[in-house]
């Protein structure tokens, strides 16, 4: 079984839940930016939650199946069509050999996930099938898909039935403006009290430079810094630090102007100060933001971050039991 890529879409990559363990040498986690959406898609077609699927950004690909399978599309609303006929998102459907899966224009969100029973069976590299394009690692030849590619599909141990669906209440999407909860810290002390207030009350807008490495935001006021003598090795700009590790979700603000939230293909370190970190429970939401959408950073404490994490786990458990 294989999938033939007729047209690749804007930036379609093979992703599973990621490649932990190599951040210390600069190889990031990678994996789906909206992890819960990929998990849901996999469960709908009867795969393990960690099976590799396709992450589609803004614009869908056109794909041909060479054998029968069960398929599901979740995440952002990029409506699928089978041989030109509409299919629902978040609902499994059957495909036959020769069927063509294509997509309508993006209606909501930013990223859709395509799961196929058996999973995309590209080679496992350092424990994962995820694509890390900057390092030309994993996925299909270490890059986004191109027309003419042929993707191997694994053998399904148990194929999910067609027509299974996930209730709307279990599909999580960002609001408008999106609320991104963050734990202040890291180098928060570098900005003035007033700048800290603005950062949390200003409404930010997603900039066009938003990808798997990080999401840039603009539109808020420039942050003012507390005076200092630059520490040796940091550089003269007030936003410079001695190059250090960057947490996933950390919010750096080069020059104090445009915050960047690092995501699954994060650069592992660098020389810009960070004001804090988006909590793990809200990382999926960032993957569903389009350029120009509004967002607000909301400060929370560790207890609230852990509570949100529990809620996210409860949601995942509900999806599992809905499909059990």
């Amino acid at each position, binding site marked *: 079984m294989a999938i033939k890529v007729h047209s690749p879409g804007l930036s379609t990559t093979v992703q599973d839940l990621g490649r932990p363990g190599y951040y210390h040498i600069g190889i990031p986690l990678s994996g789906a930016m909206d992890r819960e959406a990929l998990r849901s898609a996999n469960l709908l077609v009867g795969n393990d939650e960690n099976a590799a699927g396709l992450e589609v950004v803004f614009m869908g690909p056109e794909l041909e199946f060479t054998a029968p399978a069960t398929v599901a599309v979740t995440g952002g609303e990029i409506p699928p069509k089978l041989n030109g006929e509409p299919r629902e998102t978040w609902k499994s459907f059957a495909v036959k050999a020769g069927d063509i899966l294509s997509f309508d224009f993006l209606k909501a969100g930013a990223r859709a996930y395509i799961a196929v029973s058996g999973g995309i069976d590209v080679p496992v590299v350092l424990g994962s099938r995820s694509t890390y394009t900057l390092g030309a690692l994993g996925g299909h030849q270490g890059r986004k898909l191109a027309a003419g590619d042929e993707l191997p599909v694994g053998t399904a141990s148990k194929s999910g039935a067609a027509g299974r669906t996930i209730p709307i209440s279990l599909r999580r999407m960002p609001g408008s403006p999106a609320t991104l909860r963050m734990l202040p810290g890291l180098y928060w002390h570098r900005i003035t009290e007033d700048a800290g207030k603005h950062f949390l009350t200003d409404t930010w807008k997603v900039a066009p430079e938003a990808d798997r490495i990080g999401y840039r935001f603009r539109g808020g006021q420039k942050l003012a810094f507390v005076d200092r003598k630059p520490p040796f090795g940091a550089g003269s700009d007030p936003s410079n630090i001695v190059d250090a*590790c960057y947490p996933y979700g950390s919010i750096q603000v080069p020059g104090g102007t445009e915050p960047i939230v690092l995501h699954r293909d994060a650069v592992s370190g660098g020389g810009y100060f960070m004001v804090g970190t988006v909590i793990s429970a809200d990382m999926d939401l960032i993957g569903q933001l389009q350029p120009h959408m509004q967002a607000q950073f909301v400060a929370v404490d560790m207890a609230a971050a852990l509570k949100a994490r529990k809620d996210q786990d409860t949601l995942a458990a509900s999806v599992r039991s809905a499909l059990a």
Partner: protein
Amino acid sequence: MKTRYSFGGDEHIFVECDEEMSLQAFFKGLSITNGVRDSRIKGVTEICPANASFQIKFNPDEIAPDDLLAELKRIEETASKSVASLKTRIIEIPVLYNDPWTHETLMRFRERHQDPSSTDIEYAARINDLGTVDNFIKAHSGAPWFVSMVGFVAGLPFLYQMAERSKQIEVPKYLRPRTDTPKLTVGHGGCFGCIYSVRGAGGYQMFGVTPMPIYDPTQTISYLKDFMVLFRPGDIVKWKPIDREEYDQTVVDVEAGKFQPLIREVIFALDEFEKDIDGYNRKLQEALYGH
């Protein structure tokens, strides 16, 4: 040198060993991260040493953030008593300074530079009071460099010049980062040198290029077959200035699988190094070249 702990969201602890860069700060981080690794703390998923700081990634479902924080502080106390010494490697890296590829790139991004009327290496020579580009190359390739962090992108080494602070080369980063940097560019920003392992964005000044790959995701290059990344923190680098002919020959040799980098095992002891930096560097060179 006061250690500062901060949570990076609910999955990371970020630890700054010192605000400013020094080998003492690096070794403090290294001894604590070694201690964390040896302790096999449940829930710790990644241990990332950096220049003067480090980061621990953890799963808060397996260990409460405050418990891990307390554990790290306990390890810090023990680690502070350990000796700053390391069994490591010295690696010779050939460099073609003033190469045509970084030159083409730096000309393309001139408006993002502090001094659009000169090249990166001319600018660095001038602001470090080295006069000529030749003098700059002598200073850059004279003392060895210490790998104090691996990261940013896959396998990229951050390099700290093993010289007295007054002699260390310092340059600002570009005013605005470039969107392109040739693969294997030898760069510099702040007090750190680097080798760009892959082509991509970058803000460091560009001085030259090495023909020796340091990252190979296909693992076909002879010396990267066992692991795709060459460098690890604690490695020592010695630059070797080469001409275009040697550069071209090395590229051919790498492709043919005939190139073997010059690598020797050495012990690095921080206190001995600091007692006599020039003498210690001479000994490292003797270990590398066998004379």
